[in-house]
């Protein structure tokens, strides 16, 4: 049986000649062993696999239809050709090039920001924009006392890293790392600034440890967003159970809970548990604080201790101190501003200011208790640059600051008694 395939093409002389290509039947072809190599040695076959042109597609498909016994070798030849690579190269140092790009982006943005001088703060549920002005400090001298020269010594502590314990592994994360939980998968940016992801088991409990001096954020499977402040440990499951969504916090977080009418969200701290349905609030429950607090920005929560229960409304703060649960109305921005990189102080004692700043930058201030506790009111822009912050602190606390490597000295100035204005 003879099969015909027609090709039309122009010869150099311009004559149109039909080429009849005979494909022999099995009987004649057995003296030529037809294997995948036969195809691979055919330039037209290789050209076809590289260009995949329509006309060639038709030709080869009809060829194999007419010669089904060759199909196996044909397919093998195709598989081999699929492994051909053109200009496939891996370059060294693409990571450092990426860093260079990030650097340029960051410089570009700081330049933009410097021109604008404004930060926009958006409260997640209500979308209220508050304008904060950088670097303006209001100092109110309420208790000016004459003092001798006293020294406060601060020390930057050795750096620890944000650590994620998940999927049976311990992973070191980038500063300001974002973690994201999707179905059975957790993705994060690690210390080499590449984004990776790992598979997580439903039943596993995971931990995000943020040491002093660092911050982090995480998005849970239900879409709830959590900003984690320095010195905090967050324990969370890979997937929530059918009835509730529960996490454990030791430290400070700001959480934007995704709304769910069926599944309440419960935040557990050592002594409190906070039950929510869909809202935004700040929880501060540090191990070495003698009080824990919850500040509600929007929505509604229920606070439970082992012997007490309290319902909260927006702009309220609930405080647990020495076993007593109390509630009062507050300016929420004082407590949630850290999420945007600003500390707001309103009549805050110096020791408290130094404690917060110390935690944020991983500095321990010794001798801070020897200070008379001047009350401080003002806004502190939490710059990446420690020296900027320290000079602002010294301004606020009427001290002079000196930094030698990782030891910080705040030298108090002598002041005379000043009557209040």
């Amino acid at each position, binding site marked *: 049986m003879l099969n015909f395939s027609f090709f039309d093409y122009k010869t150099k002389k311009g004559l149109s*000649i039909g080429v*009849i290509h005979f494909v022999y039947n099995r009987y004649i072809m057995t003296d030529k062993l037809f294997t995948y190599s036969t195809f*691979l040695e055919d*330039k037209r076959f290789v*050209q076809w696999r590289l260009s995949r042109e329509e006309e060639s597609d038709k030709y080869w498909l009809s060829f194999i239809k007419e010669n089904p016994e060759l199909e196996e070798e044909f397919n093998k030849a195709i598989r081999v050709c699929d492994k051909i690579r053109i*200009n496939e190269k891996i370059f060294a140092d693409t990571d450092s090039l990426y860093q260079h*790009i990030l650097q340029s*982006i960051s410089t570009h943005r700081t330049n933009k920001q410097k021109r604008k001088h404004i930060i926009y703060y958006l409260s997640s549920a209500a979308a209220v924009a508050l304008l904060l002005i950088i670097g303006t400090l209001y100092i109110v001298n309420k208790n000016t006392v004459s003092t001798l020269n006293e020294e406060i010594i601060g020390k930057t502590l050795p750096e620890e890293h944000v650590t994620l314990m998940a999927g049976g592994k311990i992973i070191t994360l980038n500063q300001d790392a974002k973690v994201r939980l999707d179905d059975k998968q957790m*993705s994060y940016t690690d210390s080499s600034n590449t984004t990776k992801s790992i598979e997580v088991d439903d039943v596993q409990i995971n931990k995000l440890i943020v040491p002093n001096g660092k911050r982090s954020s995480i998005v849970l499977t239900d879409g709830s967003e959590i900003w984690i402040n320095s010195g905090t440990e967050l324990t969370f499951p890979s997937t929530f159970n059918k009835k509730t969504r529960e996490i454990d916090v030791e430290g400070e977080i700001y959480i934007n809970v995704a709304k769910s009418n069926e599944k309440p969200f419960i935040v557990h701290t050592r002594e409190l548990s906070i039950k929510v349905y869909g809202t935004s609030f700040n929880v501060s429950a540090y191990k070495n604080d003698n009080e824990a607090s919850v500040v509600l920005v929007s929505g509604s929560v229920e606070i439970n201790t082992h012997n007490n229960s309290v319902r909260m409304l927006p702009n309220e703060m609930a405080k647990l101190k020495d076993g007593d649960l109390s509630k009062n109305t507050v300016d929420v921005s004082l407590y949630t501003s850290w999420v945007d990189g600003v500390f707001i102080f309103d009549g805050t004692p110096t020791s408290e200011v130094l404690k917060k700043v110390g935690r944020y930058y991983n500095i321990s201030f010794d001798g801070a208790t020897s200070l008379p506790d001047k009350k401080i009111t003002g806004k502190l822009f939490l710059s990446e640059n420690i020296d900027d912050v320290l000079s602002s602190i010294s301004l606020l606390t009427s001290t002079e600051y000196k930094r030698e490597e990782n030891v910080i000295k705040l030298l108090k100035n002598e002041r005379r008694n000043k009557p209040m204005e």
Partner: protein
Amino acid sequence: MKEKYAADNFWQKFLDGQDDYEAFSRIYNLYINDLLSYGISFGFAEETCRDAAHDLFFKIYTEKNRLSSVKNPTSYLFRSFRNHLFNIQKRQNRLSPDLTLEKSAFTTEITILDSMISEEETQKLKRIVEDLLKELTPRQREAIYLRYMQEMDYEDIAVLLDMNVNSARRLVSRGIDSLRDKTLNMGNDSLTVLIFLLAAYIKENLSL
């Protein structure tokens, strides 16, 4: 071959996201090696290619809002990268403007991934591919590279090479035409040659 769907996915995430360094870094990692080798194929120094890549990704991130209409990251990235490269070249070659896109080279380096055939057969195949590509013009080679390795549509190739779609198609297939002049490599039988001549005779005289 491009993990096309992964690229499209991350591209959309990058465009939609507020400050999505994650999606951005994934796109970077998916394309950077191919872009750098693409640049080198034209004869640019690696340093120049890295500079162009830096400019490209910097621009993408900072001007993200202008990219919402771009659905296919592959063609956008390659086209944009190519433009950055030739802009750098224009700046450097202000003295010799005759070096146009038409005349620039396009080198190809063939590798064949580990497969089930012998080393000898692999080398043979590699030589066939190299010979094939050698017979083409630099533009034809570039078109085949973009089609085969980057899985670009003819429409996108046409835009990138600054020609109409039909020309792009012809560019890729012209390679085939240039081979048709050579005898078919299958069954180099004397019988075939005889029938060929017979058919030619029949066609000319009996107008088949």
